[in-house]
Each structure stands twice: as C-alpha cells, then as structure tokens.
C-alpha cells in the first residue's frame, strides 16, 4: 500500500530555509501542517505524547477503517524526504493534571511551553480533542464505566507495549454502549470481537437520526447487538463496580424505566478540545467563532489548528485547518523577516468561511 503523502504539495523537498517550526500533536492537522512546511524547506519538529505519529487516525479509529501502514509509512516518508524530526512520548506541559486525558500514560518526557517558544521560530498547536464528554448521571464514576476513547484507545495502544495499558476485560460480560456516532459503532464492534456475551446499544433518538447512519446499525443488529432507541441512561447502578444501567424509554403510558443487567458501560458521546494554555492563548474565543485564521493574539508566534481550534470534527477539516494554519504561519514569518507585518491579514476570521468554524 502506498503511504499517505503529507508532502503532497511538492514533488521533491525544498532547500532548507533556515527556519525551525515546532508542531505539537501528530494527528491529521499536525501532520498536514508538517507536510506543508517541510515542502517549503522548514526544519519541522513534531512533538506527540503517543508512541507513534498519527493521532486518532492510528489510536482512535480502528485499523480496518484506516490502514495502519498507510499512516506509519506516511510519517516515515516525512522523516526521510522532509527531514522532519518526531519526538514521540513527549508532552508539552500542560492543559491539566497529567493523566487527565486519554493517552497521557505514554508520556516519558514533559517539556515546558516557554522553552518551545524560544527554541523555534514559531509553534503550531494541533493537540486535538482528547477529553471525553461525561454523561452527568449518578454512578458514572464507578469502575466499569468508560468513555468511548478510554475503551477504544487501549485496543490499538496495547500493541505498542506500554506497561500501563491493558485491554478492556469484556470476555463473557454484558456491555451497554451509549451513543450513535462512528466511535460508538466501533465500540460495539470491538466489544463483540473481544468476546462480550451481550451488547446493548442505547441511543436517545432513532436510527434514522443516528449520525452513523442506519446501515451501520443494521449491521450491528445482524451481529446480535440489541438496539434500544429513544432511550436515555438515568443512572449507573452498583456498589464498587457496575452492576446495571437504568434507562428511560417511552412506554405505553409515558416514559418507563428499565434496568439493563450490564457489567460495563461505555459512553461514546463525544470529546471536547484540549488545547494547552487555553486561557493564556485566548482560546475561549474559539467557541464564540472569533478566532482569526490561526494566528494567536496572546503569543504572536504561536498558531493553532485542527480540533484544538474548532472542536471535534472530521479528519478532512483537521487537515484543511492544518494546511491553512501552516500557510498563515509561513506568511507571517516571511513578512516578519521583511519587517512588513502590517501586510499580514490579522482579520481573516474562521467564522467568515462558509461551513467552517462551528459544527454545522
């Protein structure tokens, strides 16, 4: 299989231009930006907490959807052709306490952000969305309750022999999956492959509205998954561990509650962006749609792209955002070198572009 070509904008590497850029996060947006900048002759160094570049393309989305070697070889091509340096197992400190986000247990080295800003001519933050959304119901902190990422991540990560990662134990157990996005579908598939005795799939609306589409749901049903629509979780039951999940669904005379006898609950209901130093970098404006094309006002040589900027989205949007941010970064450095920063378009608002900014 041909590797993915992050250097797709050039047929051969450019002469080194003497500038160095640090990219934090080796997911789709980070690697797209890396490809763009290395094509222009930048020395790009990429930092990622995980053992391999690829981000959620490698660690979140199952291998039968995105072939691992296509991403792996693509990263190697960046190293060989573009002279990119990858620092894996490395986290740039810190948006929250360590081990607060999925994948933190891989970190071997923690670098301070201040040193980064001094070391490189510019920094791009492409840290994505790694904090799982919570259900907000009683009992959700019991052992046996997982987020979609918590559940899926170790399945891929366990292959990279991290001592703290182990496969979720679902052999012979009953699992309740909540949500109807693609990762919820992947959780249900994985639970069955790992030998779950029974899988319930709970969704608050119907399969017609499901983001993953009814085709995927029909396939799940054919695999023996029990599909419960128009149902919402009310509380997780159990002492010391999960023993059941109480759900509410429409009955003959108004809503009724039933208890599912499950040992695990997986809430695959989405993630939120986890940019480091959100406050210092003014990222709270992200959600208000006031973000300029990828130029950070608070620290002028720090740029941001991908999910960290605009919240969880698709790979394509992340790639586009990484490319736009990289172009913006290169423009800024070029103009700065010529002492012409007043020509830089600081007012290129993300929100001005149709279909961008917030989720449609």
């Amino acid at each position, binding site marked *: 299989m041909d590797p*993915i070509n992050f250097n797709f904008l050039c047929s051969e590497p450019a002469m080194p231009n003497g500038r160095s850029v640090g990219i934090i996060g080796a997911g789709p947006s980070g690697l797209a930006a890396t490809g763009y900048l290395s094509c222009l002759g930048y020395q790009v160094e990429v930092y990622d907490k995980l053992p391999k570049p690829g981000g959620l393309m490698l660690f979140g989305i199952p291998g039968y959807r995105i072939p691992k070697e*296509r991403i792996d070889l693509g990263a190697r091509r960046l190293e060989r052709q573009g002279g990119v340096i990858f620092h894996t197992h490395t986290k740039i400190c810190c948006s929250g306490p360590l081990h607060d986000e999925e994948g933190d247990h891989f970190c071997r080295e923690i670098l301070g952000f201040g040193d980064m800003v001094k070391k490189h001519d510019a920094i791009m933050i492409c840290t994505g969305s790694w904090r799982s959304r919570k259900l907000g119901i009683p009992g959700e902190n019991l052992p046996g309750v997982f987020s979609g990422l918590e559940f899926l991540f170790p399945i891929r990560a366990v292959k990279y022999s991290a001592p703290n990662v182990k496969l979720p134990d679902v052999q012979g157990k009953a699992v309740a999956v909540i949500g109807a996005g693609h990762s919820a579908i992947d959780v249900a598939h994985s639970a069955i492959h790992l030998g779950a005795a029974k899988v319930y799939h709970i969704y608050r609306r119907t399969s017609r509205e499901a983001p993953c589409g009814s085709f995927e749901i029909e396939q799940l049903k054919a695999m023996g998954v029990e599909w419960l629509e128009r149902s919402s979780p009310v509380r997780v039951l159990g002492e010391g561990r999960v023993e059941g999940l109480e759900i509410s669904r429409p009955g003959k005379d108004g809503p009724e509650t039933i208890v599912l006898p499950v040992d695990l609950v997986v809430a695959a209901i989405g993630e939120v962006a986890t940019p480091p130093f959100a406050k210092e970098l003014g990222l709270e404006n992200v959600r208000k749609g006031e973000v300029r094309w990828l130029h950070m006002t608070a620290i002028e040589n720090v740029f941001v792209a991908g999910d960290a900027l605009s919240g969880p989205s698709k790979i*394509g949007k992340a790639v586009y955002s990484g490319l736009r941010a990289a172009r913006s970064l290169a423009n800024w450095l070029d103009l700065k070198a010529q002492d012409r920063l007043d020509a830089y378009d600081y007012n290129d608002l993300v929100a001005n572009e149709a279909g961008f900014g917030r989720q449609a």
Partner: protein
Amino acid sequence: MSCGKTLYIDYSLCIGCETCEYVCRFTHDTSRIHMTRTVDGVMVPLYCLHCENPKCANACPRGALKKDKDGAVILQPMLCRGCQTKNCILACPHSAMFETDRGVMVAKCDMCAQRRQVGMGPACVEMCPCAAIRYVDRDEIPSLETEKSKQAHQKVLEHLKMPGK
C-alpha cells in the same frame, strides 16, 4: 492498449472523513469532489469518473469539455464562459459537475492537471487516509473491484438515480 487514466473510489473503504474534499479545496479553492451520504449512511464522495464517452462533453453546446492526453475530461473556461444552459451539470450521471459562485460558475475535476504537468498525482489520492480513492488506468478497475465494493457501488447508484427513472 491503455484507455487512459481515471479516478476510482472504492465506496466500501471510504469512511466519509472528507479529506479528499478539503485537500481539493485547499489545492483548487473550490472543491471538485463533494462528500454526501445515502439515506442509510453510506458515505458517497461525488467525483468525476472521466468517462470514456463523457455525457457532459456531448451535452456541452460550446465544446468546452475535452479529453486531455492522459484521459482527463478538462473544462476550458474561455469556451465555457457565458454559457447559461448548464447542460453539462444536468447531463452528468455521477453528479460530478458543480455549480459555483466564482469564475465560469462550473467546477469540475481535471485530475489535478497542473500537478500532473510537474509529475505529481491528484492531491486527493495522495492524502486519502484509507486509500479509498486511486489514480489508475481505466482497464485496471475490474481487478480492483471486490464483492464489497460492488455492493457499495450499487447502493450509491440507487442513491444518485433521479426519482422516477
């Protein structure tokens, strides 16, 4: 004898991530490949198949659509300009001619003609994480098809079909 190059998408491999669309948009400003989905959730990137006998070219009253040496169906803007029939858009069975609000108001894939001139392939193909879109010789396609890809293709055809036809 080769009958030219084309793009081929295996719909059963596509996860609908929209990388093709956004890479195209970055490369050409207006994207020439568009992600849609069928009612039941199969992801369908609408794209030009650079047909051997292109209906768009046959329908064009000005001869603005021509095949280039590699087999790509190319839109020649200076001939297209001013035409209001939009015959090409109506004629395309793959919904791969796009109406836009810029230039000649029609956008279509040229298999990255400028990139091909300097020895590079179509950008979408380079960046698809799933290798679902390929840049191939047309006669290679039968050997790429699988049971799953044919099934998915059938679903897509039903999705694209005009109601009542």
